[in-house]
């Protein structure tokens, strides 16, 4: 039985519970009692007791079922298949068993596998049957329990309110759990990585070529995990992006706030915001399709040698993407400077440009800096543009016409098409992810602090 059908049944039962509870309360009322809560609240109470435990049970069951069955299956396998073999080999056997159970036969599997496949199929059907039975039992038990508590002086409304309040609390804790999940998964996998590659080598090594050798005596790829060239590439491309975005964003914000009339502002500002709404994959394709060939042709016509995946193309397009971040943050910051400061400057005979440069910008600086920091963190974490337009090889170069690689590019290339969690190659991606997470987090915290303090100053 599919999970969505099960959910539908739970909903239906909850509805039944609601009607039963309400009918109970109405009966109590019509027999002359004074109820503490109106009958619908008795209904809600029964419905919650019916639906919630069953819903939670289904979720937990779904999350746990496959791994529990796998464990049972491994435990039931004959010793020669499981003892003294690697985890990868066991998961291979498991995959074979599941394939056989699904009717996809490759060659003739050994009898132990065939038997296991049969066991697997029967366990699967037992488990889904047990799930249905348990869920229905829990739901019905919930109805019975809740109905038994209904009485004229039962505080149904307060109880319902309390249950709902706890639901709200759980939902807001979920956001914290997400962060916790991110930190835990990054840290655990990174620790596994750092047990193979020393932290210092990773952070300060100058050579990055993560393709681990397949054979021990292989010459070409040595599996070096010195991430400095990768960090450098990230910083370099982000710097190019900021070099494009900072002046464009800042000047357009100044123009829109101080010079443009209302009509132009109301047209141009949303148009600029469109740049922020375009998915990054589109920018990536744009970089590959238009910008990179253009820069290459232009460079060749000047006699320069330009790589097809030059840092300039990736960084430039990323800069275009970031323009609206800078412009809208600067816009907010400049608009927030009190009018009295402008009037003061004008009264002293300053021109608009002088007012902007010597009064408004210094006053708005913290806000602008906050926006710029957020934009930098955006640039560092940006993935698709660089995956499509930047290089794969880690080179330490300051020439924007050459290709460099970034942290995000390496994470994607290391993890695409590879799910083995025990090779340093895939684990390295989590190491890089941890560095990425920490650096963007630090930038965000600083930026939010700066912006917040600035806001307090003028409010």
């Amino acid at each position: 039985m599919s999970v969505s059908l099960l959910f539908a049944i739970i909903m239906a039962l909850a509805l039944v519970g609601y009607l039963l509870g309400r009918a109970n309360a109405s009966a109590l009322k019509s027999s002359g009692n004074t109820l503490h809560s109106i009958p619908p609240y008795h209904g809600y109470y029964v419905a919650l007791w019916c639906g919630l435990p069953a819903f939670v049970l289904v979720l937990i069951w779904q999350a746990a079922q496959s791994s529990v069955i796998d464990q049972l299956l491994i435990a039931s396998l004959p010793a020669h298949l499981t003892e003294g073999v690697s985890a990868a080999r066991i998961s291979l056997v498991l995959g074979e068993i599941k394939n056989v159970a699904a009717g996809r036969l490759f060659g003739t599997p050994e009898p132990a596998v065939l038997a296991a496949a049969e066991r697997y199929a029967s366990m699967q059907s037992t488990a889904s049957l047990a799930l249905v039975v348990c869920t229905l039992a829990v739901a019905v038990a919930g109805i019975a329990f809740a109905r038994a508590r209904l009485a004229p002086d039962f505080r149904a409304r307060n109880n319902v309110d309390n249950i709902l309040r706890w639901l709200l609390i759980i939902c807001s804790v979920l956001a914290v759990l997400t962060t916790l999940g991110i930190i835990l998964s990054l840290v655990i996998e990174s620790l596994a990585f750092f047990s193979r590659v020393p932290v210092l080598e990773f952070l300060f090594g100058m050579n990055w070529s993560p393709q681990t050798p397949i054979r021990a005596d292989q010459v070409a790829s040595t599996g070096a995990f010195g991430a400095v060239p990768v960090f450098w590439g990230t910083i370099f491309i982000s710097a190019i992006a900021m070099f494009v975005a900072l002046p464009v964003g800042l000047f357009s914000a100044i123009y829109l706030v101080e010079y443009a009339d209302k009509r132009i502002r109301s047209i141009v500002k949303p148009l600029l915001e469109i740049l922020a709404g375009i998915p990054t994959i589109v920018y990536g394709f744009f970089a590959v399709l238009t910008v990179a060939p253009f820069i290459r042709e232009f460079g060749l016509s000047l006699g320069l040698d330009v790589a097809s995946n030059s840092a300039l193309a990736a960084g430039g397009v990323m800069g275009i993407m970031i323009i609206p971040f800078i412009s809208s943050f600067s816009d907010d910051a400049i608009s927030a400077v009190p009018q009295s400061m402008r009037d003061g400057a004008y009264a002293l005979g300053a021109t608009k440009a002088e007012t902007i440069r010597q009064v408004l910008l210094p006053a708005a600086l913290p806000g602008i800096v906050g926006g710029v920091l957020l934009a930098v963190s955006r640039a560092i974490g940006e993935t698709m543009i660089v995956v499509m337009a930047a290089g794969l090889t880690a080179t330490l170069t300051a020439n924007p016409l050459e290709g460099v690689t970034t942290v995000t590019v390496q994470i994607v290339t290391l993890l695409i098409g590879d799910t083995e969690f025990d090779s340093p190659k895939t684990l390295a991606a989590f190491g890089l992810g941890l560095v990425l997470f920490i650096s963007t987090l630090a930038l965000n915290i600083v930026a939010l602090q700066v912006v917040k303090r600035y806001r307090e100053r003028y409010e």
Partner: protein
Amino acid sequence: MSDTTAQSGKPKERAWYEPDAKLSRRHAADRRLRIYGVAAIVFALSMLATLVGTIAITAAPAVTQTMVTLEVEVPEGAVDPSDPRGGSYQKILNSAVARIFPEVDAPREQRELRQLFSNGGQYALRDKVVSEPSLIGQTFEISFPLSDIGDQLHKGVIDRDLPREQRRVSDEQIAWYDRLVAQDRISAPLNFGLIFNADSRFPELAGLWGALVGSFYALLICFLVSFPVGISAAVYLEEFAPKNRLTDLIEVNINNLAAVPSIVFGLLGLAVFLNFFGMPRSAPIVGGLVLSLMTLPTIIIATRAALKAVPPSIREAAIGVGASKMQTVGHHVLPLAMPGILTGTIIGLAQALGETAPLLLIGMNAFITAAPDSMFNPSTALPTQIYIWADSPERGFTSRTSAAIIVLLGFLVCMNAIAIYMRKRFERRW
């Protein structure tokens, strides 16, 4: 500024209305700043125009698909009427082609000739015969796509004047193609396959259906999870939470979560959903869960703003007539805030629709030639399909990638338009 007071030296010979050099310099600086501003805006907007323009132009060839119409004879013996799927349709098509080009008999030339026609022709023929078994034993006309090179010849993407070594079609192929045109067998109807076909290695057969279904499932999951959870979290933080260390922590947390790079969410999905919970790889359900974690902060922040905008007098009135806190929120505050919440949700979902990086990490860039039956089956999504096509070397995929981007942008424009409309239509000023 101080310049005006610094003119204490010898008085200048000028009328009061004549600007001095310093003043005109200052005004020039003002004009320059204004010009910089205009230039910056023009640069940004022209980049936007170039982006949309180049993508629209490269997408244009994908609007139509070049088809060829052949008379096909399905002999009685070639297809078993009880099992029409098992027929050797490629052979039937080959003989239909051979009737038009009887002089082509060398195997190498025949292979070149067949390169003009799509590999999908046999399947088109098969599907037609399977749906109409009475066609067995008859001669009838069938249309199916030309191959990538035929398509490009028709659309003029391949330059015929180039020397042979630099173009991808031989002189014979061009001649054969021209004969098909002369016989009026070539047509270019609208390319519905682009939307309704699933993915394929052959550009002329590749379509977005699988990706659209995958994206739909992922967004559905994303909505089902992030909408109720986001609203509940926001309602708790805004209406119920006491001001203490814990709620402060949650607040800071949500603000930071909104700025975590999307690829980190992909790493989370890979480590937790795939590796720890053993969920199926490449499945829309995992993609949807990862996207919902990303959308959650957006919805929470939007909901809190909408709740803040509801004036306290509404709450006081409800509490004054005896409503509980939960009733106040559920019956009055939340319905009044709903337009703002929905606007924020749609914008969050639009962001989720365009998100690529986390989906790559959980394997939604797999090559899958059928739309998923359920949200547990492997699938692609719209942005990852664009990524796959952008990486494909065949020329035909360039225009299809652009066309797919136009489809994606179309969805985003629609969603944002709905959001803006709702904001304009239902926004209440108190």
